[in-house]
């Protein structure tokens, strides 16, 4: 097995725009808002960037094709900009491109940007699009809530959990994220909610109600990465380095082979998490990982993800959630920034937004939501697609001496 990229790449600077209904901003404005913060944080100027990656999922309605829109918006110095798309994991995918470029020595300093402009469609939720010429004939074009809701029906059946118990645990997930998001000035949704509000909300896709679903937002997030040596030469002292970066992709087994996958977990997440822990040298995740930012597109997704990341035993996450294990004051806090649920979910930006929060918490720069004891390792988990066919990215970053 490859030796991995642990500590080969450092984060020089990061930025994140406000997420939300940014009616007065287009995708270029949002990218610039995130970039302005990152370039100041990095302490460099634009001409020092060697290569760039751009993650966008719904290019037709937001940014347009190719890397050119970012090159225009940031007036990049005619460097290569690679556009990547991997569903909702596009943000982490762009981060991977930049990190790999630096790790390989092909670039000294690289930029990873994620952006999405979703609120121009005229309706809530994600835009409808073709799923390919074959699947348009034999597939099902459901919605995000409908696809992920099936985790819940399968979870109850597989683990013998009552629908009421699971619904209550899912509600706890959302209440916790709203409490966290309320403390985040950049978050889309900043109103705390109570359990009854979640339980009594209108149904979107059984058994997911309105508050089991994340917001759909406009926003951008970016990272500027380099080698630890260059970072130090530029005067950085508290270095955050990449410990692991793994992406796993479905190959059809979950969706096509009867009797295999049971529908109650993410096959890819378990593979990506196991590889990431190995790459980072993590042997006891629940003890060593200080916090997580996971892909809580829906409450049930976050719940099963705690099992997929080996933080809970299979079939036990619903109890751990109710016990407060992932609350802000719990053993392994999750979504300290509000998560997709409240920070918002501009698709292409989300993976980088998660890394942004981890980066801030590691450096003690998370303001009113800062953990009392800064973690030394933080994990982000970014899922794209749907439970039966998806791409899962797991990134672990940490202090360079961790």
């Amino acid at each position, binding site marked *: 097995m490859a030796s991995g990229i642990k500590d080969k790449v450092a984060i020089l600077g990061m930025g994140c725009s406000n997420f939300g209904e940014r009616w007065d901003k287009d995708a270029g404005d949002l990218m610039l808002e995130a970039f302005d913060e990152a370039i100041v944080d990095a302490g460099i100027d634009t001409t020092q960037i060697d290569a760039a990656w751009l993650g966008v999922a719904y290019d037709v309605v937001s940014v347009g094709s190719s890397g050119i829109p970012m090159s225009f918006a940031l007036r990049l110095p005619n460097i290569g900009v690679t556009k990547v798309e991997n569903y909702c994991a596009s943000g982490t995918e762009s981060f991977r491109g930049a990190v790999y470029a630096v790790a390989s020595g092909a670039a000294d300093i690289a930029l990873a940007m994620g952006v999405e402009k979703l609120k121009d469609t005229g309706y809530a939720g994600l835009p409808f699009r073709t799923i390919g010429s074959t699947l348009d004939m034999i597939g099902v074009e459901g919605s995000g809530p409908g696809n992920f809701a099936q*985790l819940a*029906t*399968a979870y109850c059946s597989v683990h013998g959990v009552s629908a009421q118990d699971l619904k209550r645990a899912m509600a706890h997930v959302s209440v916790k994220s709203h409490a966290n998001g309320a403390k985040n000035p950049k978050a889309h949704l900043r109103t705390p909610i109570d359990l009854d509000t979640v339980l009594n909300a209108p149904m979107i896709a059984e058994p997911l109600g309105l508050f089991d679903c994340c917001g759909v937002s406009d926003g951008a997030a970016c990272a500027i990465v380099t080698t630890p040596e260059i970072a130090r030469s530029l005067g950085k002292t508290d270095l955050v380095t990449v410990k692991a970066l793994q992406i796993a992709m479905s190959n059809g087994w979950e969706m096509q082979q009867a009797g295999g996958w049971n529908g109650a977990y993410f096959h890819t997440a378990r593979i990506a998490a196991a590889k990431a822990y190995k790459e980072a040298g993590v042997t006891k995740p629940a003890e060593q990982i200080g916090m997580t930012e996971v892909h809580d597109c829906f409450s049930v997704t976050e719940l099963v993800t705690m099992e997929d990341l080996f933080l809970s035993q299979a079939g036990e996450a619903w109890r751990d959630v109710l016990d407060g294990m992932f609350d802000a004051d719990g053993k392994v806090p999750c979504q300290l920034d509000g998560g997709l649920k409240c920070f918002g979910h501009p698709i292409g930006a989300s993976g980088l937004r998660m890394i942004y929060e981890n980066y801030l918490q590691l450096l003690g720069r998370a303001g009113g939501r800062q953990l009392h004891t800064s973690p030394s390792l933080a994990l982000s988990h970014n899922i794209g697609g749907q439970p039966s066919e998806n791409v899962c990215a797991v990134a672990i970053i940490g202090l360079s001496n961790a």
Partner: protein
Amino acid sequence: MSTGILAFGAYVPRKRLQRSAVHAANAWFAPGLKGLAKGERAIGDWDEDSLTMAVEAARDTLAAFDRGQIDTVLLASTTFPFADRQNCGVVKEALNLPDRVATLDVGGSLRAATGALIQALRVTAGTNAAPQLCLASDLRKARPASEPELLYGDAAAGLLVGAGATIANYLGSYSISADFVDHYRATGSDFEYAWEARWVRDEGYNKLLVGALKDALQALGVAADAVNHLIIPINVRGIATSVARQAGFNPAVVVDTLADRLGDSGAAHPFVLLVSALEKAKPGEKIILVGFGQGVDVILFEATESLGQLAPRKGVTGSLALGKKDDNYMRWLFHRGVIDLEKGMRAEADYKQLAAPLWRQHKAVFGLVGGRCTRTGTVQFPKSDISVDTNDPARSTQEDYPLADRRARIVSYTADVLTYSPSPPFYYGLIDFHGGGRLKVEFADVEPGDLRVGREIEMVFRIKAVDERRGFKKYFWKAKPVAEES
């Protein structure tokens, strides 16, 4: 070798619209229709048409029969979804029949089905010709507050015709043609135009039909009192018995026209009623089937001892027993495209069908043909060059594996109110077929509370989407919960 009917089958869609609900909405405008507002009529769901119903009737007809033997498929209807794309050809693909079968659409009259049946019977009579599958299906639209709206019903039926173990022998037929225009529907028009009922009764039923029936008895050499079942597929109250009496039959032999439970299924009705009669007939009994529409067809059968040996099937009786009462008149009007609702931006998606991929994948799309690895036995849908089996991703080992007639169980499901559906919520999920194969499916004929993990389902052929801009319908298979004992 005797020739005649080898097997029968039928399909009646599940919903039974209550005529009282229709009249309750329209009484302010058409109070005179109150007399017709009794009982219920069968209505297809939004994703059904004459083509999908024909597929279901064919599957019922072919229960336990080797489909490879079929020589010809004939489909009769006055409501074909396509004017120039053979509808029967789609049925053939959905039945996964070999390419060498002949297929033909027969339309233009309510006599289309009896006409097609006579041709099939004559071709096979006295020969060892391979069986011909005759199908009839109609899903007719009607204007709100009209008589047809109350009288019609949606249904399909099938008859397998040929030599061998016949359940009813063909004894002969008689036909006349006459351009008697009691009603008509112009090409491209959704609704019929009908003439005064009293004139139709006097000149059409009492003269034309009664006269033809009398002449038929003479031509066929059978006495009226030798006939045990007389099928006159006319749902106007009292006409069937009146015609029977005038032609010399005992009115007691008139087969129930199912007016109160199903309605008039148009071109399909003669077949529907023949199936209904065969379900009750005893060996040796004679049956007369009449078709009426710009002339008259009369066909004489005699039931045989083999009738009792026919493999179990739903037929008309079984299909009628599965009915669910429905009093949502507005929903039905919307589903038939009679009224339009504000569907919102989510419904603006483009359902354009690309012709080349459809042809490339037509066995998967229409026949639900997957693949089975000849080395490991792993079943998958769709077929692929490399097996999905992670334990042995064998290459180029897959043989055709049809899944349409295999049952499955639900792995996961949801009821989605966000995605546009003509019949919200949109039900979909994941199923595992018994014997292998997994599929992400849309569910059909579902009501709240029907779905649960592990529930048994069966596949049905339905409309997947309609490209309204280009006038194309996309078909695929959906999963329907198997009816359970309550």
